[in-house]
């Protein structure tokens, strides 16, 4: 499938934003995400991940967003996996950096 944006770089080195059809509801455990187009519900299982997601749109890369949200370097792979799930379920979409 043709793709407008290169996928050769790591997810962490690319720029992302929430899909405009996604609503976020913060909760004590993290957040609920609902995509009105796919009608899928997702869960962010910790508040720090919500912090990362909230920083994405104003950050040049997902890595920057993680830094701003105070994620330790050692924890980055875990957050990358969580973001990957959100990309795969169309909750996040890539944007030009």
């Amino acid at each position: 499938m043709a793709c407008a944006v290169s996928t050769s770089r790591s997810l962490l080195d690319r720029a992302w934003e929430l899909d405009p059809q996604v609503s976020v509801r913060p909760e004590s455990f993290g957040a609920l995400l609902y995509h009105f187009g796919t009608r899928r519900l997702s869960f962010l299982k910790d508040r720090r991940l919500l912090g990362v997601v909230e920083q994405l749109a104003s950050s040049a890369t997902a890595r920057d967003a993680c830094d701003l949200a105070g994620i330790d370097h050692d924890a980055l792979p875990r957050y990358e996996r969580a973001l990957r799930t959100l990309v795969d379920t169309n909750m996040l979409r890539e944007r030009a950096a």
Partner: protein
Amino acid sequence: MSVGSSLVEHFAQGLDAPICLTWELTYACNLACRHCLSSSGRRDPRELSTDEAKAVIDELERMQVFYVNIGGGEPTIRSDFWELVDYATDHHVGVKFSTNGSRITAEVAARLAASDYVDVQISLDGATAEVNDAVRGPGSYATAIQAMEHLAAAGFRGFKISVVCTRQNMSQLDEFKALAARYDAQLRLTRLRPSGRGADVWDELHPTADQQHELYQWLLANGDTVLTGDSFFHLAGFGEPLPGLNLCGAGRVVCLIDPVGDVYACPFAIHDAFLAGNVRTEGGFAVVWRESELFRTLRGPQSGGACAACSAYDACRGGCMAAKFFTGLPLDGPDPECVKGHGEAALAGVTHGTQPRPSVDHSVPVVLGRRPDRRCDESPLAGVAG
């Protein structure tokens, strides 16, 4: 989708707002399904007005409830149905509505296909007219199929075909799946509850123990493509968790608003014992959701009762509250369809006729050889424009 156990514990303790809720807009219905969970038929004169319904939607928007499952009765019978659907989607509350399909004309289907924020669920309880119509009434299969034809022709992809699993249709699971594929729809299977008129036919319609095991295996094999509304968590007692939360969400992450604004713990629990309040009272729905004694109790620690010693308790958590209640079983005992067989033993000790009856019944009375004494007994549409 499988969810971590710590998250499930959060849900068991309740959220500040429901994730979604069921809203029965009217008790009026042009069908008289034998197992109707809400004993629907006649419109209730105390039904929420258009303005009152819009005020509820405003509240749901403020609470960030993502979507409502609208049902009834037949919700499209309300003359303001489309007005309320538009109002909800304009206010960021998505709508999924259940219908028997009788009003899903080609025009309506085209309109639905054009909206991203409205989803449709066509009720069908048999993959053949013979099996379906025996429960939902003569002609209801053809009506549902016609609606599906209209939706598919309009390009509405992924609408839901909603099936209540019964003893009579359990051998048709693959046929239901094929039917969904034919219309580019998604199959949704839910559990028959002894709620509403369902209590009267439960003995005859509920799946046998063998069928339950077959269903469990079918769901393990097909669960990712089939929706269940989390309704079969009692089957997790067989061993493997099924996709979903495997949790009773009643009063914790879901609830029911009925046509007159009464808030119940779940759609299968229309009884005073599960009545949390009414949206018409001071503070509206939010205060009922957050402060009702009933909901606080449901969000507190639950006693496993007689089930606590069972090896399956962590998986099934004692099963469905409503199924227990309306079959006369204690709420801290086994589900009537307990996969370990404890339900059957417990049911044997229930004296016939002592089970709680629904507090609300809008069934159309069966009147033989006599004219209906009120217009609305004759037709649920009487007095309702459009």
